[in-house]
């Protein structure tokens, strides 16, 4: 087996493209000649290393495809979690949100339940809590909105909870959906039918507080 044929067959074998005859030729050559065996091993190592590494070298400088827009929200949420108050430095930005009621964390939703009128605590607020350090920002007070705070340990708990139907006695719930930048309102309409409505989610805490106050007032009626 000459040098050229040996290289051809070896490379095809490493790529998984060799015929059974070609494999047999290489194996026979390696068995009969230790130099061939050594050459085969050297080519094999170089082949496997280059095959594994070269795509990763190229990957570092790729410029396409673009990040899909719908993927941006979860990534921003990951940054918020990492740089939440008490976890590290952070600068207020366009999609920042400091949690109300002194709760720290990088939660992505704020949830409010509206109970029937006449009750002392009309609204329940819930947050996904990921930090334990309390923030000084208390722009939204439970007292002002007559809300009761509920905390979820993580998004999974919240997701499970929000999938359930409204509990008896409550007639609406509201949550801030950071990923789609809307405030979602779900309330019981005529005949007990559920009605959903969305509002644009403002970027600043002050505006969010204002909108939430309006929604609560609207749900409470005149």
């Amino acid at each position: 087996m000459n040098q050229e044929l040996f290289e051809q067959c070896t490379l095809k074998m490493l790529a998984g493209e060799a015929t059974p005859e070609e494999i047999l030729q290489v194996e026979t050559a390696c068995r009969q000649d230790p130099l061939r065996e050594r050459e085969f091993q050297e080519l094999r190592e170089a082949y496997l290393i280059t095959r594994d590494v070269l795509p990763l070298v190229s990957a570092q400088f790729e410029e396409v495809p673009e990040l899909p827009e719908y993927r941006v929200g979860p990534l921003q949420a990951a940054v918020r979690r990492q740089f939440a108050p008490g976890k590290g430095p952070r600068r207020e930005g366009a999609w920042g949100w400091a949690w109300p009621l002194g709760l720290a964390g990088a939660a992505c939703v704020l949830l409010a339940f509206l109970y029937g009128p006449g009750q002392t605590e009309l609204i329940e607020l819930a947050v996904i809590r990921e930090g334990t350090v309390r923030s000084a920002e208390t722009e939204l007070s439970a007292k002002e909105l007559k809300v009761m705070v509920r905390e979820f340990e993580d998004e999974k708990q919240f997701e499970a909870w929000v999938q359930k139907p409204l509990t008896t006695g409550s007639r609406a719930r509201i949550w801030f959906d950071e990923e789609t930048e809307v405030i979602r309102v779900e309330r019981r309409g005529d005949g007990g039918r559920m009605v959903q409505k969305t509002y644009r989610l403002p970027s600043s805490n002050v505006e969010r507080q204002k909108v939430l106050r309006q929604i609560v007032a609207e749900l409470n009626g005149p």
Partner: protein
Amino acid sequence: MDNGPELLKRLKQGEESAWDETFRILYPCAFAAARHPSVCLTPEEAEDVAVEALEKLVPKVVQVGQFDELRALVVTIAARAAISLRRKLSAQKRGSGQTLSLNETNEEGQEIHQPVAPVAENLAPLELRELSGLLKGVLGGMDDLTRQLVEGNLARGKTYRQLAEEHAMPIGTVGVRIARGLKKMREQLEKRPELWKELRNHLR
């Protein structure tokens, strides 16, 4: 576009606009790593992996000294995640519920526990950066045809038959050219004994 020290500083401060910009720069890198030819994920699977890699990058930014290190970091994270997903998918496909190595059966039909891309799976970001310079140098020293064949087969996963058709040459010639390119690669790698030793260890 600001890829320098200022952008990295803003990332470490958790500045949202800096992270938005970085995610857009690094997503294609993570996506390409997840589409490693040896791993064979679909574009949809690779997208999931790439986004997961970007999320994992966030807490690691404090360990980085230069913005470009993030490229190597996200690529190695994405490659590992892609290989891990491939294993899970293969295990599910077999219906065993177990996580097995990929690939191959021996003559008796028993599975050989051969990892799918052992070097890619174990490669450290620093090694990748070192290899980037080295491999680029070697590729740059090859004639155009050999470089295209090596890149086509080993970086993009094209078969010898495809390359032979593209370049209108016999399949055997493709193999010979690639073999010579690989010998040059090896010569250069052997000049860095520590790196070479690490890479060979990854293969075992």
